[in-house]
């Protein structure tokens, strides 16, 4: 199975371990990831608000690069995923916008016709690998590991994109955790916001919000948290010292990127998955505790 691979900015900087782990896990799953080198940032939340036409252009350009390769696009970041999904929808809804964008893409010989299938790594596991094959690929079931799934926002909201009446009903991560042998726990933070998108100008929101989520995961018996989004990971892991300082409480909660959790179950080592790049250490012995 071949995908045009879009890692996004975070997995190429702050969360470079996610990019490395994704490549290793993809190899283990039989996914062939094709780099699209000239792909840019999708514009995060900021460009999409203040500069919509250019936001759509950057995103449709990414979709056009995948379309030129004749490949579906695989993402590993919630916000990137929603951005390309929204740009695709806007492109299909507004012929005038579509024409404007294609005229600009023509400068570099690109054209988008709306054919690129967009899939986050989490969805690829279910739709392209399949539960049966995934179970067969699990070499080291993570038996006994209690996991708190942290969805974040942009993989389960807004309602007009994902059709949840109540986004808390999403079970994709918990179901996956069970396939890998873990025991998912229930807690209040599952589909709450980490506050990343205001952190560049004011970290206090992220620190306060995410502190509540980690605390709830811990109180409900989680040994680790797992997230499909590197932006959430940044707040959960890289900000955890600041969160602990703010709460006056030791949390010491290791945070895994989704591909790392899958990789551990596939039998990859913590070193191969670059768990050493996290601020809060994950103790591999926890699995058998």
């Amino acid at each position, binding site marked *: 199975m071949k995908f045009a691979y879009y890692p996004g900015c975070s997995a190429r*900087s702050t969360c470079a371990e996610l990019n490395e782990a994704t490549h290793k896990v993809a190899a283990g799953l039989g996914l062939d990831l094709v780099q699209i080198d000239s792909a840019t940032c999708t514009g995060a939340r*900021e460009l999409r608000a203040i500069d919509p036409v*250019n936001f759509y252009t950057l995103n449709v350009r990414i979709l056009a690069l995948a379309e030129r390769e004749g490949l579906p696009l695989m993402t590993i970041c919630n916000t990137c995923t929603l951005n390309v999904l929204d740009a695709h929808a806007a492109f299909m809804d507004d012929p005038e916008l579509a024409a*404007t964008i294609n005229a*600009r893409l023509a400068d570099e010989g690109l054209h988008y016709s709306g054919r690129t299938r967009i*899939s986050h790594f989490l969805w690829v596991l*279910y739709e392209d690998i399949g539960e049966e094959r995934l179970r067969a690929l699990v070499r080291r079931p993570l038996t006994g590991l209690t996991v708190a799934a942290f969805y974040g*926002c942009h993989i389960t909201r807004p309602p007009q994109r994902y059709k*949840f009446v109540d986004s808390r009903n999403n079970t994709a991560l918990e179901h996956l955790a069970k396939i890998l042998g873990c025991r998912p726990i229930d807690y209040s933070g599952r589909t709450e916001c980490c506050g990343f998108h205001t952190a560049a100008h004011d970290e206090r929101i992220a620190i306060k919000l995410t502190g509540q989520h980690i605390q709830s995961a811990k109180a409900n018996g989680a040994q680790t948290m797992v997230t499909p989004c590197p932006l959430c990971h940044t707040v959960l892991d890289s900000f955890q010292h600041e969160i602990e300082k703010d709460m006056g409480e030791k949390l010491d909660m290791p945070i895994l990127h989704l591909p790392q959790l899958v990789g551990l179950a596939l039998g990859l080592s913590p070193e191969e998955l670059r768990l050493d790049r996290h*601020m809060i250490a994950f103790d591999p012995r926890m699995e058998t505790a």
Partner: protein
Amino acid sequence: MSGTLPHGEARRLGQSERQDTLQSRNSRFAPGDTITVRVRRSDDGQLAEFRVPYRKWMRVLDALNWIAENGAPDLAYRWFCGSKMCGTCAVRMNGREVLACWEAVEPDMTIEPLRNLPVIRDLVVDRGPFERKVEALEPWLDRATPYSGFPEPLSHKDMKNASKALDCIGCMCCYSACPVIGLGDLTDFAGPAPLVQLGQTALDPRNDSAKVARSLSLTGIFNCVSCYKCEEVCPASIPIVTQVIEPLKAKAAALVPAMAKHSTALRATIAARGYVDPTALVLRVRGLAALLDLPRALRLLVRGKIDPIKTAFRRKTPASAAAARVLGQGRPSGDQPSGDRP
């Protein structure tokens, strides 16, 4: 499930097994069923439990009416129209903001007052803080130039976003669901409900931009975390983030540029590099003061979370060339995607 799911299904996992549709709600009951309802009472802060006989198509409001008539005549709750118009009956049911008059009952329900507003009694909250915020935002139309005469040049495209905001019934569901408002006075964020009220006129192109700028500068709008919690609970299905808050942010970036420092810095970072270097972004937004927390910078450096060399020496790449081509063409494109206004 055992094999692969059809494309598009994985993103909806949980919807069918958890009956996450409005239609499926009533199918959870059989005639003669009893509903367990726990209501948060303000006298003692405790949940009072009631057993309510289920009636077909029963709504949360019907259950509250039954309790008031049969169990707790002193229960305080508010409603007027009973038909999703007046916006007075919003409560939280099992942790989610709903209109009592428009929500099907669940077999097991905990009913609580909205968050983020003072409780007057039981399920009745004081809307005062919201109303005072809205008043300060001057949410009315002022023309900078006199009415140009009939027919007025105004298209559905011009009013696309404002008309969505005009669907608001002022129920405060979004205000209760907003996590940033939940942090109290930590920020100056006005919150989704006041912003929707402002959007009704501020997103109207006839409005006086000096007045809109004045209003926007009071909103702390860039403290919205884009979590879409407000959209999720909006009974009027207003795309609050996409069609109200984001267009208002675009207006703020154009009319009060100092507010949009983070957004314009991110735009500049992408234009220069093709992607976002988080360190470069934070330095652009906060200046060199961001370097003051040395122990933290060191911790991040040790784990490879920051890369000063990469931040300091940016390379020209195919992505940076592409970003420069797209973004390097002057000013932001404004708040009207295919802008047909002059």
